């Protein structure tokens, strides 16, 4: 069974080395791929110097969706069975990767999302984000009859079935909630397990306050358009 950790990184020179060492320490049996999404800082150099990861240097910034998808393409072409996606900024804990992958190894699920709202996570994100997440949760309940509490989480594990769908079709901007929709609509099993989220060690969130509105509109429009497609 071949397993890979996919780490999208855009200007994460402060955090990336720490993340890589943690990944190596906790899941030494995983290959590691960093997708440097056109960073203008030392992200690529630092990631290479650890000797832990292969690094894909994208010549131009394509955004989080395009970067993560590059990892999916790599994973599918190289025949990986399981891929874990984890942020390059250190907000996810690599020691939880094993727990994330466990339901997939047991064949209980196709996709596992690390959620900050399941069980005893103490992490509090900003109010707009929490409201947005609540709204996505409600949408998922109504449209998919599934209870996904943290569809914006970028800490996820996928099996081959999920990778085969996403390497072809993955949204560019704010891809996470839409990807949940795609996967569930494709009949895949998506579950959540509790995960702790740290304050970011460096870099900035891709979601700034004034972008949250665009985020919401974009995600709902995209899901709406996908619903139309299915009816044909």
């Amino acid at each position, binding site marked *: 069974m071949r397993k890979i950790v996919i780490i999208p990184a855009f200007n994460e020179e402060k955090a990336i080395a720490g993340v890589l060492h943690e990944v190596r320490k906790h899941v030494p049996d995983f290959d590691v791929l960093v997708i440097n999404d056109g960073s203008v800082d030392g992200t690529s150099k630092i990631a290479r110097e650890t000797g832990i990861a*292969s690094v*894909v240097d994208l010549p*131009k910034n*394509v955004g989080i969706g*395009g970067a993560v998808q*590059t990892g999916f393409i790599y994973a599918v*072409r190289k025949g990986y069975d399981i891929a874990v996606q984890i942020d390059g900024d250190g907000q996810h804990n690599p020691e939880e990767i094993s727990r994330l992958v466990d339901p997939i190894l047991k064949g209980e699920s196709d996709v596992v999302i690390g959620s900050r709202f399941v069980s005893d996570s103490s992490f509090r994100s900003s109010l707009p984000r929490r409201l947005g997440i609540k709204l996505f949760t409600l949408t998922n309940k109504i449209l998919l009859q599934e209870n996904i509490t943290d569809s914006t989480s970028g800490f996820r594990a996928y099996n081959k079935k999920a990778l085969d769908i996403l390497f072809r079709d993955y949204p*560019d901007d704010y891809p996470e909630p839409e990807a949940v929709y795609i996967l569930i609509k494709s009949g895949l099993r998506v579950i959540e397990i509790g995960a702790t989220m740290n304050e970011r060690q460096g870099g900035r969130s891709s979601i700034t306050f004034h972008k949250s509105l665009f985020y919401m509109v974009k995600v709902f429009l995209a899901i709406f358009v996908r619903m139309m497609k299915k009816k044909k």
Partner: protein
Amino acid sequence: MGMDDVQGIRIQILSIIGSILLIIFIVELIRRKRLREEFSILWLAMGFVFLGVALFRNLLDRFSFMIGISYPPTALFLILIIGLMLILMHFSVAISELKEANKKLVQEIGLMKLEAEKKGDKP
């Protein structure tokens, strides 16, 4: 011949010349390969619509009457705005396609550089 007719013929001649110049300009752009045919179609269509309206003055009046516009020059603006909207939409579609193609290229170049590195070549 009254003053109104003279004015009318003046603007008619100007419109005809303007429309023909627009059409020549577009054809010239295509000929010099500065403009791809797919993008020229809407522009050419606009040029010919203007030429038609300029040549046959009652065309605009009849069209206005047909769709219920009481002041014919407004119909001209309507045609113009619809034409521009179509062209702009065409641009948005074209840009979206370019963005998608661009993303795919960037992804493939990144992956290919990694492959080359692994084979021992320096990027």
